[in-house]
C-alpha cells in the first residue's frame, strides 16, 4: 500500500478498517495473551491448539474465527490468559488440553467454562466477564489502553482503535500549542523523578539549535517493574505516536528508543511497529504529507541499572560507557551529542497521544493536585492478585492492596509496602490511607520511582528488607563516586552486623550519618536515593532495629542468627513428617509422640515449618 499522505487519508483509512470490522462484529474472537509472562507459561502451544481445533472442525466456514495474539494483560501470574469476544470472557491458566472444551462450549455454544474463570479467593464467587474481575474493575487504563485488546504487530489494529488520531490532531496544531497542552495536562515523568513533562519540553524549545533529539527511556532497571516492557511489547505504537508528537512540537528529526537489553520481545515488536509506521507514512519523510520528517532508531541498553539514569543513558546511546555525569548543564540544553534533548519514559510517551486527542482538561481532571492522570503500578509481594494495574493518582495504598490486590496472602497481617524500586522506601500499614502520588510518597520518605509496589506481611523483617535492597544497590553502584561506591558497602556491613546479632547502639547513628553523606554527596540519582530503604525503615520500624540490637531478637522470625526453631509438644501429633524432611536429621521423636529439635545441629532452613500440617513448629 502507498503511504498515507494526508490527515484526511488517515481518517478514510480508519473508516475503511471500521467498516470491515463492523461486518465481522458478531464473530467470535479468541485473544491469546502473548506477553513475556504468558509465553513463558505456555501461550504458544495454547494458540497452536486453537488454530488446530478450528482448522480441524472447519470452523472458519460457520463461525469465522479470528485468532489474535496480544500483549501482556498484566495478570501474568494467572497466565496463559485467553479472552473470548464478543462475550468478554477471560479464561485463566489455560492449557492446550482445555482448548477443545472452550471451542465446544464457549465459541460454539456460548456457555462459560466455569473451572477456567476467575474465582474470588475470599468470597468464592466466580467472575467470568473480563471487565468485572476485581483486578480489572477498579482500574482506569490510559497508558495501558490497548494492551491485551490489540495485536501489537498489526498497525491496523492500532489505527482501528483510534491510533495516530492524536498525531493527526497535533500536526494541525501549532508546536507552541502542543507544548502548552502537555503543560496544562499536568503530566509528570513516569520514569521516577516526576519532572513535569511540559516544563521539560518548554525549556528545550527555548534553547536555540538546529538539531534536537527526543529519547525514550525503556531501560526499566527496577527488577520488580515491568510496565514499560508491557507497553513496548503490547502497544508499541502508543510510544512511537507519543514520540512523533513530541518531535513535531520540539522540531526534532531524530529519536531513539533505549531498550533494556533483556527485552528481546520489546525490541522485536518495536521494530515491527517502526517499519509498519514508516510504510504507512506515519514515520520518516514527510509524515502524513505535513512536510515534517522524523525517524526513530532503537538503541540496546548497556545492561546495568544505572544505564537508565539520564546522563548515563545519553552516553550509552552515543556509544560511550553508560556512566553518569554531573548534570550541571541540563540535557534540554546539552544532551545527546551535546544537543538539546528531551528524554521521557515509555509510559510518559504513551500518555501523550491521549492527552492531545482528548485534551489537557480531560487528563487533568484525574488524579490529585500535584499528580495528574493515572499511573501504572506493578503490584507484587504478599498479596492475592499480583500484576500490572493502572489507577488514577491519589488512590490510597489500602485501596490498592485490598480492592485490586485482593488483600494480603493467606489472611496474614498487612505490615508495609515498599514503593519506588530498589532505592525506594517502606511505608507502614498505619499510613496505608496515604494517597499514592509523587509528593505524598516523597514526603513519607519513599518515592514513586518506576511504580513498583511490594506488599509485605507480618513475616517480613524490615532490617532484612533494608539489607536486601542495599545489597542490590551495592552491586549496581557504578563505582564512579566515593559516597556511593565506598559508602554503600559500609552501610551493608552495618546492616549485616545488625541482622547477625553483632549490632551495637552506635550502629543506627552511623547508618544515619552514612545515609546523610550519600544523599548530599553522591553524583547521580542512584546514590542520592540509595538511603531511602535504610532511613525509611529506621523511621517507621525503629523498634525492630532495637529488638535486633538490644534483645538480639528478630521479631518477624527472619534473621537466621537470631531465631531458634522448636516444636510445640501440645500441637505436635508425632506424624514424623518434619523428621523425614529435615536435611540435618536433627529432629527426633517416636511416632505419635511429640518431636524435639536438636538446636545445636539445626541450620534454620525452615523446612520443618513448611512441611508441618499441624502448625506445630515455632520460631522464637
Amino acid at each position: 500500500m502507498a503511504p498515507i499522505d494526508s490527515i484526511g487519508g488517515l481518517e478514510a483509512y480508519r473508516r475503511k478498517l471500521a467498516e470491515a470490522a463492523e461486518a465481522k462484529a458478531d464473530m467470535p474472537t479468541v485473544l491469546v495473551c502473548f506477553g513475556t509472562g504468558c509465553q513463558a507459561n505456555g501461550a504458544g502451544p495454547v494458540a497452536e491448539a486453537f488454530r488446530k481445533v478450528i482448522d480441524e472442525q472447519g470452523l472458519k466456514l460457520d463461525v469465522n474465527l479470528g485468532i489474535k495474539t496480544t500483549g501482556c494483560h498484566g495478570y501474568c501470574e494467572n497466565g496463559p490468559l485467553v479472552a473470548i469476544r464478543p462475550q468478554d470472557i477471560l479464561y485463566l491458566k489455560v492449557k492446550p488440553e482445555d482448548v477443545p472444551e472452550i471451542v465446544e462450549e464457549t465459541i460454539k455454544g456460548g456457555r462459560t467454562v466455569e473451572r477456567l474463570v476467575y474465582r474470588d479467593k475470599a468470597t468464592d464467587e466466580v467472575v467470568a466477564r473480563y471487565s468485572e474481575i476485581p483486578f480489572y474493575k477498579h482500574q482506569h487504563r490510559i497508558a495501558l489502553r490497548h494492551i491485551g485488546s490489540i495485536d501489537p504487530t498489526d498497525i491496523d489494529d492500532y489505527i482501528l482503535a483510534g491510533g495516530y488520531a492524536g498525531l493527526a490532531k497535533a500536526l494541525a496544531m501549532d508546536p507552541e500549542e502542543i507544548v502548552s497542552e502537555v503543560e496544562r495536562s499536568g503530566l509528570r515523568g513516569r520514569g521516577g523523578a516526576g519532572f513535569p513533562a511540559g516544563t521539560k519540553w518548554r525549556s528545550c524549545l527555548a534553547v536555540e539549535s538546529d538539531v534536537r533529539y527526543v529519547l525514550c527511556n525503556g531501560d526499566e532497571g527496577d527488577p520488580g517493574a515491568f510496565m514499560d516492557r508491557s507497553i513496548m511489547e503490547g502497544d508499541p505504537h502508543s510510544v512511537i505516536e507519543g514520540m512523533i508528537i513530541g518531535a513535531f512540537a520540539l522540531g526534532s528529526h531524530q529519536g531513539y528508543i533505549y531498550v533494556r537489553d533483556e527485552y528481546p520481545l520489546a525490541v522485536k515488536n518495536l521494530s515491527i511497529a517502526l517499519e509498519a509506521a514508516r510504510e504507512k507514512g506515519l514515520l520518516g519523510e514527510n509524515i502524513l504529507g505535513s512536510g515534517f520528517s522524523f525517524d526513530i532508531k532503537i538503541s540496546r541498553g548497556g545492561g546495568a541499572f544505572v544505564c537508565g539514569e539520564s546522563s548515563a543513558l545519553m552516553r550509552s546511546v552515543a556509544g560511550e560507557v553508560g556512566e553518569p555525569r554531573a548534570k550541571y548543564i541540563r540535557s534540554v540544553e546539552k544532551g545527546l551529542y551535546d544537543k538539546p534533548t528531551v528524554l521521557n519514559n515509555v509510559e510518559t510517551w504513551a500518555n501523550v497521544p491521549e492527552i492531545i486527542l482528548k485534551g489537557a482538561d480531560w487528563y487533568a481532571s484525574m488524579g490529585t493536585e500535584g499528580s495528574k492522570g493515572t499511573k501504572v503500578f506493578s503490584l507484587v509481594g504478599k498479596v492475592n492478585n499480583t500484576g500490572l494495574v493502572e489507577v488514577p493518582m491519589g488512590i490510597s495504598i489500602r485501596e490498592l492492596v485490598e480492592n485490586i490486590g485482593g488483600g494480603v496472602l493467606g489472611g496474614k497481617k498487612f505490615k508495609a509496602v515498599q514503593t519506588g524500586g530498589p532505592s525506594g522506601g517502606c511505608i507502614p500499614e498505619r499510613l496505608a490511607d496515604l494517597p499514592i502520588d509523587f509528593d505524598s510518597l516523597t514526603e513519607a520518605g519513599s518515592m514513586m520511582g518506576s511504580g513498583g509496589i511490594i506488599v509485605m506481611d507480618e513475616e517480613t523483617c524490615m532490617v532484612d528488607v533494608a539489607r536486601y535492597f542495599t545489597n542490590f544497590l551495592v552491586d549496581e553502584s557504578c563505582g564512579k563516586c566515593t559516597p556511593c561506591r565506598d559508602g554503600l558497602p559500609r552501610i551493608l556491613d552495618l546492616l549485616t552486623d545488625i541482622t547477625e546479632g553483632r549490632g551495637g547502639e552506635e550502629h543506627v547513628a552511623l547508618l544515619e550519618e552514612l545515609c546523610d553523606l550519600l544523599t548530599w554527596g553522591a553524583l547521580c540519582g542512584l546514590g542520592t536515593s540509595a538511603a531511602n530503604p535504610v532511613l525509611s525503615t529506621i523511621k517507621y520500624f525503629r523498634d525492630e532495629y532495637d529488638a535486633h540490637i538490644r534483645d538480639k531478637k528478630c521479631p518477624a522470625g527472619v534473621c537466621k542468627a537470631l531465631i531458634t526453631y522448636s516444636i510445640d509438644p501440645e500441637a505436635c501429633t508425632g506424624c514424623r513428617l518434619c523428621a523425614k524432611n529435615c536435611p540435618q536429621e536433627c529432629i527426633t521423636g517416636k511416632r505419635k509422640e511429640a518431636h524435639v529439635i536438636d538446636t545445636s545441629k539445626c541450620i534454620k532452613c525452615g523446612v520443618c515449618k513448611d512441611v508441618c500440617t499441624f502448625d506445630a513448629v515455632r520460631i522464637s
Partner: protein
Amino acid sequence: MEKVNVTIDGRTFEAVKDKCVLEVAHENGIYIPSLCYNSEVTSSGGSCRVCLVEAHQGGRMRLVTACNYPVRKGLEVKTDTPLVRRIRRGVLELLMARVPDSEVIREMAAAEGLTEVRFREDTGENERYKCIACALCTNVCAEVVGVYAISMINRGADKKPATPYLKPSDVCIGCGACAYACPTGAITLKEKDGVRRIWGKDFPMVRCSVCGTPYIPEAQVDWIVKRTGKDRSFFDKCPDHR
C-alpha cells in the same frame, strides 16, 4: 570571553563564564581540596567528591563539585559551611577506610581534623591499595596522551584502572603520564638499568647521547615520531642537552 560576577565565601570576583568554581577559587587564593581533577584534563573531575561546596543560585542551594560546576551570573558559592565540612569529612573518612595506607588522603583528612576511621578498613588487593578509583589516570591516557591504554573496569567498590584483560597493553607507550597524574601515587613506575616498568610491561629507554641518562621510552619516541612527524634524531639528547 564573557565575564560574570561570582561570589565565593562573601567575596565577589569577576570570572570567565562557565569556568569551573574550583579554578576561580584557586585563582583568588581560596582553597578547595581536590583529588580527581586536573585542569589540563577536561574529562577529569566529579568523582572523588572532596571538592563539594554549596552553590546558591536562583533561590536554590545545592551541593556541587567545584571542579566541574560552571560559574554563571549571580552564583554564590560557600566553601566553609557546616554542611560542606560534614560531607567533606564523610567523604574523606570513606577514602581513609578504603586506602588506609595513603599519605595524601591521611593528610587531607587530618586537615579536616579527622584521624580515626569508624568503619572496617579495606585490606583489599595490593594493586588497588592507595587507588581511589578516581579515573584521572585513564582520562589522562585517553585525553592528553591520546593512547587509550587503560580504562576503568568493574563496577562498585571493585572499580579500578586496568589494561585490557589485565595483560600488558599492546598500545601503552610507557610515558608514565598516568602515574604522574595519579593523586595518590597508586601507579607503580620503576626504572632500572635503562628499563622502565609500568602496568606490568618493560620499556627500554633511550639514553641521552651527552649525559647517558635513560630519559624516554623507545616506544614513546616511536609514537611521537609517528604522530607528529618529528625527526627521530631529535630524541638523541635529553631536554637538558638539546
